[in-house]
């Protein structure tokens, strides 16, 4: 479990809700599996990346460094969840 009672399922649920909203450009797809690539599905683009990073920083109180804005950290729900868990665990 990460800081402040954050648990993987809670993180994942919060992320899925955010990514299913129409605020992200091209995010017309409301259903995606935990492992599906956002980039391949067209859910994430350059503006979407900025929105997502901004959301992560505000929602989870973390700082996303420039060299962390990579597909390995952000390009699926599972990858995002793992990334947030790592960052919140390190901050605690």
């Amino acid at each position: 479990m990460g800081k402040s009672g954050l648990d993987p399922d809670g993180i994942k649920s919060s992320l899925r809700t955010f990514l299913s909203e129409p605020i992200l450009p091209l995010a017309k797809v409301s259903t995606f599996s935990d492992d599906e690539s956002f980039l391949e599905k067209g859910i994430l683009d350059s503006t979407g990346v900025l929105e997502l990073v901004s959301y992560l920083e505000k929602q989870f109180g973390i700082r996303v460094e420039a060299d962390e804005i990579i597909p390995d950290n952000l390009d699926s729900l599972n990858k995002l969840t793992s990334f947030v868990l790592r960052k919140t665990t390190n901050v605690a």
Partner: protein
Amino acid sequence: MTYSKDMLKMDCSAETSRIVGFIQEQARAMRRSGAVIGLSGGVDSAVSAELCVRAFGPDNVYALILPERDSNPVSAEFGLKQAKKLGIRTEYIDITPVLQAFGTYDKRDRPIRELFPEYDSGYKLKIALPPDLLARDALNFFTLTITGSDGVEKNARLGKDALNGIVAATNTKQRTRMLELYYASERMNYFVCGTTNKTENIQGFFVKYGDGGVDIEPIAHLYKTQVFQIAEHLGVIEEIRKRKPSPDTYSFIVSDEEFFFRMPFHELDMLLYAWEHRVPLTDIMGVMGLSEEQIKRSFRDFTSKFNATAHIRQFPPSPPES
């Protein structure tokens, strides 16, 4: 065509004839008797001007040199020299007053000051994407760099609102140039000649109704490396052929590669061709000496940019007839 290192090499003489014929045909269809072109001091506009002169003769090609206060001074210098080489008429118009009246610089600077309160007109600025996509994976996000008279650089990652604010303000530069070009062309019954190449077109590296607001695009089927081939063949001045391509939109010099493309043109064009024509991965790996991961990373970037900018390559949509 077999995928190979030399596959983008062209018969420049034949291609020149083909493009010149196209330009003449379009002029006839539009009932225009010449071309107006914005000479930016870069290779694309230089080549387009050369082709127009071959299509119409120098007396029927009119060049506008349209710098503003952030432009690199060599841009106008090279543009004028290229125009002199071609023997065409030129008109030099500094568009800074128009941009100031619109508030371009103030609008652009507002989001910058939110990040750097010390920023003022004594600073230079640029924005750029993460470098070296082939060397290191990173998603597309822009970093703002400012530098003062002391040469110290400061960087900040741009959030959505800041990026949109800066880009929207900066795009007024290209749109203002479009105004000048169309005023001249309609006055003279000429058409406005575009200068976008294929590498830029596919990835949406032009401004909608800015440098994308033109009547024809005579080199939009040529990759950047092919534009350079034709430039040498046509005798574009050496300063332009040797100049590193740049958007020339920001006061801090930034190359096209840093600002947008994230890899050198010789690799970019080969990969773009492969992406467009669905060349098998093993063929690409063999010819370019890249890994599967590097190629897939590049293709991901191309697809993302192509999809995001589809609307700027299309006529505005409307509902189908009922």
